């Protein structure tokens, strides 16, 4: 199937834009989850928002973003409060508390979806899990020239606009609260004594995660959200010990995974002679996993190869030192 410019601009470009924006936003926020050992918060949030999304949708009766967004945020906040309550008053470890709350929320969401389906509402559980990147259309552009036309940009798909806004909020939040986020991530006790309210920062991170996850959720599905919150940040962490570098690298990895995964899913099969495209969200998650595997193997200091090389260098240096000591007793 020859790929026309028009097809690319109308079908692939908006999906690609949504994927890139979602991945960049998730990757940026994910750094703080990985550093704070809250990686599963993304998993919990992306499952727990389901009843809120469906509830907001059923109440509003339309696929209006704001109703679903409000419902999702409410569900995420409620889930957060419940997890904390079960952990504190039930004296359960936080993993178990999360597991109890998010599975029940997700189950409630699935039941709600089925109730909606009974009333012929168009929303199904599959698109929640792996999104509907392929369904994002942008009908305005007809050729490269129309990308320069402001009128076309006005009709950008709603998902892309929402994701761009969320990415902007994430960048602004990280830029403004960089110092607080850093201290609270590495040393919550110090943050407390400095009067930086680590609890408040914690809540802020969870809320930011929730907002990002919700915005990305509808476009790319919960599985990709979990992958993107953790894998790029984890890969960046294999390569550097400096937070600013890690933030930059993680966003870079997120974008690379989005583009690579999307291209592999949408065009790969045709290049290989297949006749149909693959699921893009899943492929992006796989691409992120591959990037992480590469980083874990080849990272210069923390990767498997890098550590082996360092060990060998130390070994040689130690051997040299013993030779020197053995050769020259009595040296100063």
């Amino acid at each position, binding site marked *: 199937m020859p790929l026309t410019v028009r097809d690319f601009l109308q079908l692939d470009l908006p999906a690609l834009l949504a994927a890139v924006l979602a991945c960049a936003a998730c990757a940026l926020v994910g750094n703080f989850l990985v550093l704070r050992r*809250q*990686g*599963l918060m993304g998993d919990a949030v992306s*499952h727990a928002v389901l009843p809120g999304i469906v509830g907001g949708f059923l109440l509003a009766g339309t696929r209006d973003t704001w109703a679903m967004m409000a419902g999702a945020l409410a569900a995420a906040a409620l889930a957060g409060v419940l997890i904390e309550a079960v952990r504190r008053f*039930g004296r359960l470890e936080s993993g178990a508390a999360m597991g109890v709350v998010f599975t029940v929320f997700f189950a409630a969401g699935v039941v709600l979806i089925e109730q909606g389906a009974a009333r012929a509402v168009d929303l199904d559980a599959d698109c929640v899990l792996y999104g509907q990147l392929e369904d994002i259309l942008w009908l305005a552009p007809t050729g490269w020239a129309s990308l320069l036309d402001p009128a076309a940009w006005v009709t950008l798909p709603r998902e892309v606009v929402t994701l761009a806004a969320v990415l902007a909020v994430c960048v602004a939040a990280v830029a403004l609260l960089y110092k607080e986020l850093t201290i609270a991530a590495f040393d919550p006790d110090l943050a407390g004594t400095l009067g930086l309210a680590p609890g408040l920062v914690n809540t802020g991170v969870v809320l930011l995660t929730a907002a990002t996850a919700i915005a990305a959720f509808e476009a790319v599905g919960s599985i990709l959200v979990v992958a993107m919150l*953790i894998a790029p940040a984890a890969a960046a962490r294999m390569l550097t010990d400096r937070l600013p570098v890690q933030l930059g690298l993680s966003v870079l990895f997120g974008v690379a995974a989005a583009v690579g995964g999307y291209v592999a899913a949408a065009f790969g099969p045709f290049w290989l002679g297949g006749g149909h495209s693959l699921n893009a969200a899943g492929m*992006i*998650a796989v691409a992120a996993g591959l990037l992480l595997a590469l980083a874990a193997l080849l990272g210069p200091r923390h990767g498997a190869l890098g550590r082996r090389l360092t060990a060998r260098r130390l070994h040689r240096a130690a051997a040299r030192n013993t030779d020197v000591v053995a050769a020259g007793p009595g040296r100063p």
Partner: protein
Amino acid sequence: MIAEALRILTLQAGFNTAVVVAGTAALGLAAGMVGTFLLLRRRALISDALSHATLPGIAAAFLLGVALEVPGRSLPLLLAGAVVSGLIGVLTVQAIVRFTRLTEDAAIGIVLSVFFGLGVVLLSHIQALEVGGQAGLKGFILGQTAAMSRNEAIGMGLLALGAAAAVALLFKELRLVAFDAGFAGGQGWPVAMLDIALMALATLVTVVGLQTVGMVLVVALLIIPPAAARFWTERLGTMTVVAAIIGALSGWLGAALSALFPNLPAGAVIVLTAGALFLASFLCAPARGLLATAARAAHLRLVVAEGNALRRLLLPGVAAAPSPALAVWLGARGLLRGGRLTGRGRVAARAAERNLRLWERLLAEAPAQVPADANWGIDPIDAVLPPDLVRMLEERAPCR
């Protein structure tokens, strides 16, 4: 409606429904028992990675079946694929934790999402193939009891009972590892092997549960019943039994409900039932439930306030009237009348005074003897310490 519900619950609504309901109850029973040890080993969420990691295996097994021209959808082949890729997922989590600087939560999230993503990619490939039976694969994600055949349900029930029997047989060893892995290793028990056995049992339960509950929610059956059972008891044996009962009840009620309302997805209903049982346990369980804990704390506060007020009333020349509410309470108990201690009140006040004095002396003379599980200064000391120790404290002069 009610008659129909009763017939399903008592396994009389047709053989098929009965087998599915009974099989799901067996699954819940096994999941509760295995989950108890996962919870105590703090491995609860690894099973989430495990269950999501089964998807690529199922899809790959389906493709293999197509390539080998196995007719239709061969369930054993699909489940074997699920076991293999689930175990690879768990091993990947452990390898990430062991060989990189990433923590377990990140490893779980990575394995869960990347494996599931791979499974989704394979599924989208399968969807486009021109072979039969691919529609059933999606049933593994959110579960569907309706599509289950009689033999599948019987097989599921038997496998689940096998897992439950294995936990019962390994109970002593699993208990040791759950509470003190270092000691277990020192005693020569193969801790690593036991951990692998536990994860293998979790894999078995997960794979058995894929069809009914689905891979997204099967983790709930491994986490919620043990977490609920934790509120009922402080003893492991009891906790295992309670978790098994709660799990079986969730499976039984949930499967019956979804048979009654066919458009409700079975997995979600089972999980919601388990969630309701968890909530009831969280609030009402006598050992660690919220209400019982609050009641015990309130009682303790009352005992302390009462003792303090009585002791203050004993002191001569101190204006130490208790607060009005407490005065009413003491009056109702017949310890106080008109702002003065009654005869019984005097006895009670002396006892409270003696109790606190002995506790203080114990702390001063032999702090190591203060029992860790007693409420210092509050519990009646005669009930906590042996009588000869109490007599010694009474005879000893205060050290100041």
